[in-house]
């Protein structure tokens, strides 16, 4: 692999990782390169992204992970995008969060983030302030995390009589999720018996 190829791979990996970012070890692992090599490439790439005038994103390093972010000086355009009249919609993040809550309520922020794979504080805040979701109680246990659920406004907004009118999800979604849990259950069960007998 030449330098260009390696950096193209790194770019695609960082891109796909999104807000989660990747650390040196993960990159080294996927590329089968040493961490030193990766670090050299990262330094080179960081510099290159900063220098190139036609690039709107650059590499930032946060808590040991590298990720792409939009360049700070372009933030006024992002703001325009968010506020543009063509965008009189919830952000995709908001819509996703709302969908998860609608189908899986009551649900904690952590559980939502587990499904989405990204932080969800802000979309939650937005949805609460728009009155589409609200606190429906607290999860049991130490953290006593907030449980979110949809509101009456939510039903009005989507023209639903009640939650049972939500379109049904495909069977395999439920099956898959079920399987994972059942698998874990049986694994745990099996282990517990093995331990006992051993």
């Amino acid at each position, binding site marked *: 692999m030449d330098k260009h190829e390696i950096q193209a791979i790194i770019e695609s990996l960082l891109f796909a990782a999104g*807000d989660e970012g990747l650390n040196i070890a993960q990159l080294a692992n996927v590329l089968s390169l040493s961490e030193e090599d990766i670090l050299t490439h990262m330094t080179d790439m960081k510099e290159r992204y900063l220098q190139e005038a036609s690039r709107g994103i650059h590499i930032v390093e946060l808590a040991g992970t590298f990720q792409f972010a939009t360049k700070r000086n372009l933030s006024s355009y992002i703001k325009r995008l*968010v506020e543009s009249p063509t965008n009189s919609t919830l952000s995709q993040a908001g819509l*996703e969060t709302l969908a*998860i809550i609608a189908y899986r309520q009551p649900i904690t922020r952590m559980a939502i983030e587990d499904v989405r794979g990204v932080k969800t504080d802000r979309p939650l805040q937005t949805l609460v*302030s728009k009155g589409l979701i609200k606190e429906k109680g607290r999860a049991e246990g130490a953290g006593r995390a907030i449980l979110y659920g949809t509101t009456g406004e939510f039903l009005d*907004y989507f023209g639903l009589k009640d939650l049972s009118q939500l379109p049904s999800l495909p069977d395999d979604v439920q099956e898959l999720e079920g399987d994972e849990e059942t698998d874990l259950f049986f694994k745990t069960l099996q282990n517990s018996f093995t331990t006992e007998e051993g």
Partner: protein
Amino acid sequence: MLVNETKKMVIHMEYNVKVEAFEGPLDLLLHLIQGLEIDIYDIPMAEISEQYMLYIRAMNVLELNVASEYLVMAATLLAIKSRMLLPKQEEDWNDEDLSLEEDDPRDELVERLIEYRKFKMAASELKDKEKDRGSFFTKPPTDLSEYESTKQESIEGLEHDLHDLLGAFHKLLRRKKLQRPMSTRITRQEISIDKRMDEILNQLRKKSGLHPFHDLFPIAEKPHMIVSFLAVLELMKRNEVVVHQDENFSEIMVEASKGVTMVG
């Protein structure tokens, strides 16, 4: 005969799965036509009917549920076959044109087969596209809520329908997630029954007396609940906890057994 029958059954069972793989009578007919290397515009009805009936018989032998559509098609095939055997109508004075012109009883069937075949091919092209779509990855939208002006506090002006909601959910499910050391995943996988047993015992001993059963399930995630449940069972078996219930459906109460030493 009996031996034959048994042998036949064995052969059939081996192909059981394949028998059910046809998408319907049209699919089956297309297969037969191709297998017999027949011209689709000039189907020999006797031959195709025979082959088709063979298939239906096989399904019966296998005691598979023959969908009614297959039987309707069988009847159609036989009807076409017999119509072709009928003596020619007398008013048709020109004998040579008969089998060629629009009176051919097979026309409608051929049309249906050709129409269905188009979509069968289109379906296989879609399948290729489905596969190709799996070879490139997009990213989730960046959370842009920090750019939203805070005064936007009503749902006025928003335009979504239920379909957007469902769509968002599907997009999410389809999104390939990178494996990452997400804290929740790790803690979830690391719960062992032994550890949970220790935790529960400590919890019960901290405050002597009865504890509500549901207090032992602090984390509302299934894996954690299952491990907790198994831990309680194990502790009961070892007589390290005692469980009380006053009556059916009343709250189950748990307490640590007295005079038992801490588990190592």
